């Protein structure tokens, strides 16, 4: 990662090839011109990513008519509703990240131990890609069809087994339901993120440990565990931000109120009626950026450490 084959090679190309091999186009561009060709990309990112982020950041500190204020940010700390949503978002993200990382990590291990080019691995990886990234609303419906009213599992218990042991299906529409569905899509995300790290564990290391008389436990305790620890921690952080920024599933499941942060932001967007609070949504959005940015910086630091063993 730090030194790619291409970036190592590129500077030498200029020296070896020299001016002779350069076409007319390059002379017209020149050194500054070379950077000019990147303008369309930068302009695009500026307008559709940086500008919106700036609008959020500036809006968080201004009133609707443009004067500077700290009221929006102050609301985050004084309003019980916002504080509650913030705490619940964090709790939900931490819980589902840990559950997803442990269960998904086990699944990744089980998949990697199989044939690397086998059908099982390819099926599981492709399915994980779909379930982890592209499912939001559809997965919510999947769970309604599983645990909802008149759905598969309750029907199985009440109609087929005649057991009235399940709680009322309305739990699915609450925070508990969110936790179950979030964990569901964290597992495949963990698999996708963690499989390459497990692939990095070399057969020679198992063999070396075994030939020295090590058991499976001592391998994981002294070799595999310490090597994978940074990757696991990094994945955990990634899963946290994934749950923290998720909106679609929550929007599809929760019909009453807005218990988590993303739903609060959406509610602010959809009903900007209260005079003087037009920009509270932007302050909430800024709070999200801050949390995610801190986690991503931590993640980048851990990732640098994790890549040490990956060559």
């Amino acid at each position, binding site marked *: *990662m730090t030194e790619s084959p*291409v*970036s190592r*090679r590129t500077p030498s*190309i200029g020296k070896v*090839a020299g001016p002779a*091999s*350069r076409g007319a186009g390059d002379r017209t561009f020149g050194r500054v011109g*070379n950077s000019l*060709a*990147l303008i*369309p*990309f930068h302009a*695009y990112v500026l307008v*559709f*990513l940086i500008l*919106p982020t*700036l*609008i959020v950041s500036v809006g968080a500190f201004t009133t609707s008519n443009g004067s500077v204020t700290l009221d929006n940010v102050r609301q985050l700390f004084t309003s019980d509703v916002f504080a509650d949503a913030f705490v619940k978002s964090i709790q939900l993200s931490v819980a589902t990240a840990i559950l997803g990382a442990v269960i998904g990590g*086990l*699944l990744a291990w*089980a998949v990697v131990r199989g044939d690397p080019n086998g059908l099982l691995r390819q099926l599981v*990886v492709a*399915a994980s890609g779909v379930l*982890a*990234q592209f499912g*939001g*609303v*559809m997965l919510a*419906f*999947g769970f309604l*069809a599983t645990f909802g009213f008149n*759905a*598969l599992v309750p029907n199985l218990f009440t109609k087929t087994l005649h057991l009235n042991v399940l709680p009322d299906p309305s739990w699915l529409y609450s925070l508990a339901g969110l936790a179950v569905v979030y964990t569901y899509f964290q*597992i495949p995300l963990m*698999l*996708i993120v963690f*499989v*390459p*790290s497990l*692939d*990095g564990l070399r*057969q020679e290391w198992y063999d070396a440990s075994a030939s020295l008389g090590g058991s*499976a436990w001592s391998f994981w305790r002294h070799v595999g565990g310490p090597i994978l620890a940074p*990757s696991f921690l990094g994945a955990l952080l*990634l899963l946290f*931000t994934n749950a923290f*920024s998720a*909106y*679609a599933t929550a*929007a599809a499941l929760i019909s009453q109120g807005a218990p988590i942060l993303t739903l609060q*932001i959406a509610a602010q*967007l959809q009903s900007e009626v209260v005079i003087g609070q037009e920009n509270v949504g932007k302050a909430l*959005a800024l709070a999200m*950026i801050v949390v995610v*940015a801190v986690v991503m910086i931590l993640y980048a630091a851990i*990732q640098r450490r*994790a890549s040490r063993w*990956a*060559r």
Partner: protein
Amino acid sequence: MTAPQGTSLGAAAPGGGALLSQPRPRGRGRRRRPGQLVARAIVLVVVLGYLVLPLFAMVEFSTRGDYGTRSLGSYEAILSYPNLIDGIVTSLEIAVLTVLGMLILLVPTMVWTVVRVPRMRRVVEFLCLLPLAIPAIVIVVGIGPIYQWMGQHLGAVGASPLTLALIDIILVLPYAYRAIDASLRSIDTATLADAARSLGAGWPRTILQVIVPNIRGGILSASVLAIALVLGEYTISSLLAFNTLQVVIYLLGKRDPFVSVAVSFAALVFAFVLLFVISRFAPGAVHRGQQTIEEPAA
């Protein structure tokens, strides 16, 4: 080279990890402890079982007929909802625009950073990965005023749902960057470009006819990931009030849950087939490109 990519790149791009990295080949005749086999089987059955359960429930739910019979009525009924068809068509159109826009924006830029301005490579990478750190819902909050402006000043074009492609291009940048970057690293792009240029090809021709065919695996992966992401996108289209596939599925869920579960299941299967096809064929395509280049160089 695949392993470092996997660990350092893959993790930063959910969806780019195992989907884009290739497993390290293992020797045959690995010793296996019986305990490990049992543990592996238990994990696979329990966890995969849990992952399959809602999908199975979707099939069970969407194929319910009258009086306990099975029927495909819900799937046939998909065609009888014009809104649903509109949503599917809109999402597919956005997907096409997103793929085209992403490729036009990203491929020349990335090739250019490799060949001419390597010092900008880090900057481009950083900008491409930035959307991972900015949740979609935050982008909606900030882009709302921009879309309001577009709707007022750009007429029918500015108010069209197809403008969602503009944001979707941003959302797919991390995934697309990882996929194309992996391909660009597997070939000697700079030498290739210089060779084409010294033979008299202009830049458009160098990129389109020399570089692009050699990174087609990465381009294919990036495109498929983009299509899947657009078809599953809900947050932005719902909050900007555009009726894309996911928004229509959600609205339909309140009126006819059976049909909306049927569409959901069909869409998941469609995305799965797309990703399964790339995971099976795309790495091979990258690999072939690598061989044709490395041979003359060696």
